[in-house]
C-alpha cells in the first residue's frame, strides 16, 4: 500500500502539514476574482479574441482554486487535474484561434455579433 503511493508521498514530503483555512482563503478569493473578471469580460466584450482570453482567465481561476484546495487537503488530485486542464487548454487554444481566424476571414470582422444570423 505504501509502496504504491511512494511517489505521491515523496511529493508531499515538501508539505508535511495541511495548509490552514485562513491561508487558503486568499487563494480562493483571488481565484474567484479572476473567474468573475473573466466572466464579466466574456459577457460584455464582443471581440472574439478578447472573449477567448476571458475564457482562458476563467480556466486559470479554476486551476488556481484546484491547486489551493489540493495543498489544503495534502492531495495530489488537484495538481494532476490542473496539468490535464493546461494540456487541454493548450490544444483548445490552438483550435479556438484557428477558428477565430477562419471566422474573421468570412466576415472581415472579429465581432461576435457578425454571426448573429446563426440563430434558431
Amino acid at each position, binding site marked *: 500500500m505504501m509502496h504504491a503511493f511512494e511517489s505521491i508521498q515523496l511529493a508531499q514530503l515538501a508539505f508535511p502539514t495541511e495548509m490552514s483555512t485562513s491561508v487558503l482563503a486568499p487563494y480562493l478569493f483571488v481565484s474567484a476574482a479572476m473567474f468573475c473578471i473573466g*466572466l464579466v469580460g*466574456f*459577457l*460584455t466584450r*464582443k471581440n472574439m479574441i478578447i*472573449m477567448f482570453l476571458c475564457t482562458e482567465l476563467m480556466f486559470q481561476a479554476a486551476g488556481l482554486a484546484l491547486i489551493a484546495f489540493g495543498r489544503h487537503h495534502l492531495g495530489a488530485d488537484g495538481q494532476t487535474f490542473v496539468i490535464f486542464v493546461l494540456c487541454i487548454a493548450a490544444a483548445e487554444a490552438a483550435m479556438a484561434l484557428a477558428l477565430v481566424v477562419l471566422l474573421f476571414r468570412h466576415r472581415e470582422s472579429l465581432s*461576435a*455579433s457578425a*454571426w*448573429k*444570423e*446563426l*440563430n*434558431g
Partner: protein
Amino acid sequence: MMTASLLNNLLAPLAMLAPGSSGSDEPASAHLAHMTEHVGTGPKWILLIVFLPLLGFVFNAIYAASGNKSKLPAWTTIALLAVAFLATLSMFLSYDGTPYTVHAFDWFNLHYGEKSFVANFSFYIDKLTILWMLFVTGLATLIALYASEYMSHDIGTGYCRFFSAFGLFVFSMSCLVMGDNMLMLYLGWEGVGLCSYLLIGYFYKKPSAVAAAKKAFIVNRIGDLGLALGIYLTFVHFGTVEYAALFSNETLHHYIDAAVAGDFSAIPSEAQWIAMLLMVGAFGKSAQFPLYVWLPDAMEGPTPVSALIHAATMVTAGVYLIARFYPLFLVSENALPIVAWIGTITALLAATIGMAQFDIKRIMAYSTVSQLGYMFAGLGLLSTTGAAFHVLTHAFFKALLFLACGAVMHGFAGQLDLRKLSGVSWMKGWGIVGITMLIGCMNLAGLPYITSGFYSKDMILAEAFVTPGYRLMGWVLVFTAIMTAYYTFRVFFRVFLGDQHAEPGEDFHGDDTNDFHPHAPGWAINTVLITLAACSMLAIALAWIDKSAYHGWVGSMVADSTASFHSPYAVSLAAAHGEGNPAAVAGPVGYGAPGKVLGMDPHGGMIVVSGLGAIFGVLVAAFFHGPKGWQGLFLGGRTQADKCRMDAIAKRAGPIPRWAENKWFVDEFYAMVFVTPLRVVSHIFHWIDKLLLDGLVNLFGFLPRVLAWIIRPSQSGVLQGYAVSMAGGLAVLLLVVIVIVLRAGGAA
C-alpha cells in the same frame, strides 16, 4: 339440389353395376390400379421434346441481344420444334402400353419423418400425354412456319421477341402436359399463362393490347388460385403430388369404388373438394363461364398466337387437367355435373355473342369459347374420349380458321370487319385461303359425315342424350350447334364469297398505311393452311380406327390412361349404342333404358339431329348473308359488302342484337360488380393509408418540429446570450447545491 339429383342420374348406371349388385368381381378402380401398377423408366431422349423448345427460347434471346435482322429466329424455332415433333412421334410409335417416367433432375425431394414431399423435374408418359404432345408440337411447328411469314413486318427485335416467347410457350406447355407431378403441371400452367400474357401484349404500344394482356393475366389468377389450392389439398389428403403415387393410392381406389356404388358419404368432403378447386383452375385457363371474358380480348395478340395458344393448345389445358385428374373428379359428388353444365352454359352464351360480332377474329374467339364448352360438357358427361377427340379436331380446324382469318388480316392491313370485306376467295392469289377457310368452316359447323368436327361433336351430343336427366343439355348443345353453323358460315358467305370488295384496315403490324396494297399470302402461309386443312379432313379417319372397341383412335388413346376407367358403365354404354362389343355381351348390362333420339339409337339420332341442324344453320346463313346467285346457294340476296338481309331483321329485333354485339354486357357487369367496388375499396384504402398511416408517421415527424418551434427562440445567435444562460444555469445549480448542503448541515 338440381345438380345432386342429376348426379345421381349420371352415376345411376354405375351404381347398378357396382360390384356385388351385378355380380361383377372387378371393382371400378381396377383399371386405374392396373394403369399405375408398373410405371417404368423411359429413355432419356424423351427430354428432347421438352428442352428443344427451351433451347429455341435461349437462341432467340441471343439473336435479340445481338440485333439479328433476318428470318433466322423463325428458322431456328421451326427446326427445333420440328425435331421435338419427330421425337414426340417416335415416343408415340415406341410406346408399348406401359406408362413410364423420365427423370431430368431433382427439384423438390424432401423427406421428413414418415412423410415426404417429392416433385422432381420428371415426365410421366402415358397415352393421354402422347395424344396431347402430338398436336401441341405438331401444331406449334406448323404455326411457327406460318408466323415466319406473318410476323415478317416486324423483323428485328420484335421478331426475336415473338419467337423466343413462342419457344418458351412450347416448353411450358410440354411441362404442363408431360410433368409427372402436379407441381410440374403448375409450373407449366403458369408458364403458358406468362407466355400468353407476353404474346397478347406483343404490340405493347397499343393500349388495347396491353389492357387485354393484363385482363388475361388477372382473370387467370382467379383460376390459378383454385388450381394451387387444389394441388395443396391433394398433397394434404393423399400425401403426394406425383401422378404414379397418386393414382396408385389405395385410398383413392376405395373412393372410386364408393363413388361407383353411389355412396358419396363414404368419401370425405376434403377429397371431394379437390376436384372442385382444380375445376376452377380449368375454368380460368379454358375460358369457361364465368371466367371466359379474357379470351375474346386476347385476340389483340398476333394471329399465330391466337391460333396456337388461344385456340389449339393452351386453352385445352383445362380439358387436359380434368382428363388427367379424372379419378379425382369421379370421387367428387358435384364436380362433374357442374363441369357439364358450366360447359353447356358457356357453349350457348358464347355462341349467342359470336352470332352478333362483326370482327371475324372475335367471332372465331367466341366460337373457341363455345367449342371449349362442348369439351367440358363431354368431360362432365363421363365422355373423356369425346372431349379429347373434340380437342384434337378443334385444334386442327380452329387453328386453320384463325390462320385463314390471319391471312386476311395480314393481306388487308389489319381489316377484320366482315362488313368491309367481300369475295376474298376470288381475288388473285387468295384461292387457297378461300378453300381452306371453307374446310375449316365446314368442320366447325359440323357438316355430317364429311367433317371431323361432326364426329367429335356427335360423340358429346350422343352422350348427353343417353345419360338420363341430361336430355335438356343435349338439346341445348344441338341448338348451339345450329348457331355455330350459322355464325361460321356468316363469316364465310360475307368475307369469302360475293362481289370483290376490300377496304384496308388501320393496320397495326408495322406496315406503312399510306402505301396500302393488298398482298396475297406467300408460300409459308399457304403451305400451313393446306396442311391443316388436310389434317382436319384426315381426322375423320380417326373416328373409324378402333371404332368398335374404343369409339375411335382417340378413345384408344384415352382408354390407356388415367383419364378413363374401364367401368361397367362404359361397357353398358357400348351396349346401349348397340355396337358389337363382345365385352358388352359378356359383361353386365344393367343400363336398362338407353336414351333414344327420335326413336333411333343415340348415334343414329345424332346424325339426323345435329347433321340436319348444321345444314339448317348453313342455309340460314346463306339466306341472310349469302351473295346473290349460286354462291349464296340461290338463297342469298347480298349485292354489297355491308348490306344484307340480316340488317332488316336486326333492326326489327330491337335492342337484342345490339346487346349480343356488346357481349350481353358481361364485361360491364363485371366492371360494375367486381372492378368498380374493388376500385372504390382501393381508393378507400388509399386514403386510409394516406391519412391514417402516413398521418401517424408524419405526426411523429411533426411533434419534434412543434417542440423545436417552442424552444427555438432561445437560440438567438448572440454569443453573449448563450454565455449568460450558461453562467445563470451554473449559478442556479450552485445555489441548489448550497441549499442542499445547508439543509443537510441544519439537519445534522
